[in-house]
């Protein structure tokens, strides 16, 4: 009989995690033993970002700004205060500046240092936002990057690139799409994509 552990259930061991995954477990074990980490608190943090906090929050802010001029003015004047009032505050949302796209200016956001991002409004950044390519090229050749994202700017539009830091995070207020007159904030929110709020997309009108 051939010697074959793989098909012998008595010998099948648990799937071995990758080296960095094992090292993270080791770090957590060490810090928990030292009383510096509460595993329940870690679970709570993961749950929040996996299920509760994401771009839907930011989309509600944008849709409200499109339909409520007083709120929009407040949002542009003091982003942190305006989004906090809607319940979107906390980690990495302490200093939020909202920048408005117009027919003259298209804004896009990057973090050239690491991956600073307004978590309470957009959740955890996608891999491309964290990639070296985006972090380097967004500043150097924003129009080429935008073209790759499928964004064609108006000939009149300049591009402004905002570099996030631990102290300041940015949210783009996209232009309200054509053909959405009379729509409510609740109807508009699904039209606001994550990319539109990072400035690597635009808000698109409802499909006819």
């Amino acid at each position, binding site marked *: 009989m051939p010697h074959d552990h793989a098909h012998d259930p008595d010998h099948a061991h648990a799937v071995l995690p990758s080296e*960095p995954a094992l090292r993270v477990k080791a770090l957590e074990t060490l810090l928990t033993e030292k009383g510096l980490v*509460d595993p329940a608190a870690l679970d709570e943090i993961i749950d929040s970002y996996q299920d509760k906090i994401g771009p839907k929050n930011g989309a509600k802010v944008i849709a409200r700004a499109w339909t409520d001029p007083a709120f929009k003015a407040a949002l542009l004047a003091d982003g942190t205060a305006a989004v906090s009032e809607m319940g979107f505050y906390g980690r990495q949302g302490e200093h939020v500046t909202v920048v408005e796209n117009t027919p003259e200016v298209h804004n896009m956001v990057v973090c050239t240092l690491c991956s600073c991002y307004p978590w309470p409004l957009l959740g955890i950044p996608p891999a491309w936002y964290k990639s070296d390519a985006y972090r380097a090229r967004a500043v150097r050749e924003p129009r080429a990057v935008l073209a790759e994202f499928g964004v064609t700017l108006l000939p009149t539009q300049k591009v402004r690139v905002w570099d996030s830091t631990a102290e300041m995070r940015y949210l783009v207020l996209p232009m309200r799409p054509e053909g959405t007159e009379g729509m409510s904030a609740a109807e508009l929110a699904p039209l606001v994509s994550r990319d539109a709020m990072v400035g690597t997309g635009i808000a698109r009108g409802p499909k006819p």
Partner: protein
Amino acid sequence: MGEPAFTAPWHAQLFALTVHLSEAGHFSWSDWTQTFGAALKRNGLAKELDGGDDYFAAWLEALEAILHGIADGAKIAALTDQWRQAYLDTTHGEPVRLPGG
């Protein structure tokens, strides 16, 4: 939309660990971004990082660096070995625990 926030469980675990330790006052978030930015730069010299596993590998390196003095590297290495062995010694489907843990 619909993309998972984290593509591997250890990314999520590492993220949570870092946020938790910063909130507990072991380091400021500003110091964290400096340390992490430096780790990304170092790791990005040899190859362009794609924002996935390699990004979190740099993150782990940065966290160990900023915890220097709190979490000893030799102890982390020893516990990593113990965890590896625990997985190898555990029958598939059973919960994996450290001996005596």
